[in-house]
């Protein structure tokens, strides 16, 4: 079995897909981080011109805000529900002032998190599709499926080895996205930002943003959380791609079907958000990271747990159907 997995990984590596993916990522990340740096500098320029002051003194602004918040906390009229969130904001501001970091300065880790948050519903799934779409269909279109399936190895083992190789490569791709986005954006921002405090854990209760369970974590911990969710989404997409790759026997068609599903799914969510069944479609549930900001609910009744379970079911079902079809398929190429 290990040999089979090694073979599949070799095939994936020799196809040079990974190099293509890394190339695409480098281009995207460089453009985006340059863009972000540019916008940031523009904003500061504009602020300085507008306020007439020679320099943009974020520190005094932040200190002023901190004092306001502290005064508010002392006031007897503050509602109980506001205390928690105010305290958190105070702690964030203190951190920035003590460490002499402008809160709106872009940092490498912040960029990296933003990048996957934006990419999780389309760009990253597409990258996984590029990686996985020809895993089975490619063997059909080149005819190599015939030399592969006429060995003394049962078919399910061959598919399992492909699946495991795919999971390994998907994990690698998610890691690469993380590493590249941090490294490249650091070149522009000169700021790692691993220890910046981030507030997370907001929840939506009866339509009200609830801050009771909010905790402060470092941005590094937060990025681990975001990347785990990204990894989970990627694995589910990989499983669905594998199924399509088995069903259609043609790589171009497989990529087409998946792109149509991904893009069409976004449309569906946009136009038919009142229709309850849309929330069970996998594309509608891809945006896991947005639940963490608390206020996100694309369609009524959806939550982080709901989306994780729905995606999991899609992944498992795809694998089950995939294995069944692959085991019984007549190879006629």
């Amino acid at each position: 079995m290990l040999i089979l997995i090694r073979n599949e990984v070799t095939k994936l590596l020799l196809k040079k897909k990974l190099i293509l993916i890394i190339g695409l990522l480098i281009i995207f990340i460089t453009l985006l981080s340059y863009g972000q740096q540019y916008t940031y500098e523009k904003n500061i320029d504009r602020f300085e011109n507008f306020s007439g002051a020679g320099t943009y003194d974020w520190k005094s602004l932040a200190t002023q805000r901190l004092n306001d918040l502290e005064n508010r906390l002392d006031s007897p009229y503050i509602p109980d529900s506001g205390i928690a969130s105010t305290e958190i904001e105070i702690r964030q501001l203190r951190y920035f002032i003590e460490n002499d970091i402008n809160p709106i300065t872009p940092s490498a880790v912040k960029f990296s998190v933003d990048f996957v948050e934006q990419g999780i519903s389309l760009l990253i799934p597409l990258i996984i599709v590029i990686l996985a779409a020809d895993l089975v269909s490619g063997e059909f279109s080149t005819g190599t499926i015939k030399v592969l399936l006429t060995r003394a190895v049962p078919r399910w083992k061959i598919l399992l080895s492909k699946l495991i190789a795919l999971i390994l490569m998907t994990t690698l791709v998610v890691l690469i996205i993380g590493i590249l986005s941090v490294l490249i954006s650091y070149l522009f921002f000169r700021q790692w930002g691993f220890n910046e405090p981030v507030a997370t854990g907001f929840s939506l209760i009866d339509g009200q943003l609830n801050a009771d369970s909010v905790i402060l974590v470092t941005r590094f911990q937060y990025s681990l959380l975001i990347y785990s969710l990204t990894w989970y989404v990627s694995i589910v997409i990989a499983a669905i791609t594998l199924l399509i790759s088995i069903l259609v026997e043609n790589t171009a068609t497989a990529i087409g079907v998946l792109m149509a599903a991904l893009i069409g799914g976004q449309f569906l969510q946009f136009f038919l958000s009142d229709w309850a069944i849309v929330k069970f479609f996998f594309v509608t549930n891809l945006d896991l990271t947005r639940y963490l900001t608390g206020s996100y609910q694309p369609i009524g009744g959806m939550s982080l747990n709901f989306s994780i379970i729905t995606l999991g079911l899609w992944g498992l079902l795809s694998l089950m159907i995939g294995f069944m079809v692959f085991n019984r398929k007549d190879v006629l190429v």
Partner: protein
Amino acid sequence: MDTLVLNVSHISKSIKKKEIIKDISFQLRKGEVLGFLGPNGAGKSTTLRMLVGLSRPSAGTISICGHSIRDDYVKAMAHVGCIIEGPDLYDYMSGYKNLELLGSMSKHVTQAAIDQAVTLVGMENRIHDKVRIYSMGMKQRIGLAQALIHKPDLLILDEPTNGLDPQGIHEFREIVKSLAKDTGISVLISSHLISEVQLMCDRVCIINNGMIVQDGTVTDMLSTGEIVWVLNDPIKGQKILSENFNLASLLNEHNELIAAIDLKVLPQINATFITAGLELHTVYAKNKTLEDLFLSVTNQRTIQ
């Protein structure tokens, strides 16, 4: 029977309710080279695909070296090497890497076995080049090496010489022939090329419309039991045949005398001709060509 390498019994196959293979049975013994001859669309490829597990028969059983391909797939397949419709290889790897990768999927395939297969097909010099830049003939050689690395007892070749030039066909044929002779491997070759089958095979199955219409040795199938005499006066010969031996005969376009006879009486007939004063130039047994036979059993043009 322990020498039975392949036993195909009553297999049928329907694809989309169309019966493509109708109740085919045949056996293959150790060391035998069997040709599977039939026009395009006769069901050769479909049958071979079922033998190597790429497709499942709707009915019937197939066993290879005593292992049923359905119940004991892994054991059965360990005895088979095959090329199904052209050599399909990973073209982004070298030929050697292809063999290594495929070899690693069978038990006990050593480096030495791979090298041996490479030498056998004469690819030592180009084996580390990418398959993408190979010619068709080179790919076919690697295809054959791929089928041989795990030392199978049964070699299944589906249209192996498609796309090869005459030189390539000749070399391929020599390799397969010497393999069968030296290693005792059984070979099943499908082809629509009659000459190829005639030159390589001990036995032929002619298949048409998903049925086996003829199964026998090449020599048996081709003999007609007819004898041809070249005489200076064939009319007189004809008269002797009908009067002395009560045999019907006819003359062909070259004025040669032809009659279907029992070979035991041939010396007697020849002696009678000579005593009657006829000049006997040549006597030979008339053989059908495999082409005649093939056309006569498959004489229908529409694909059903």
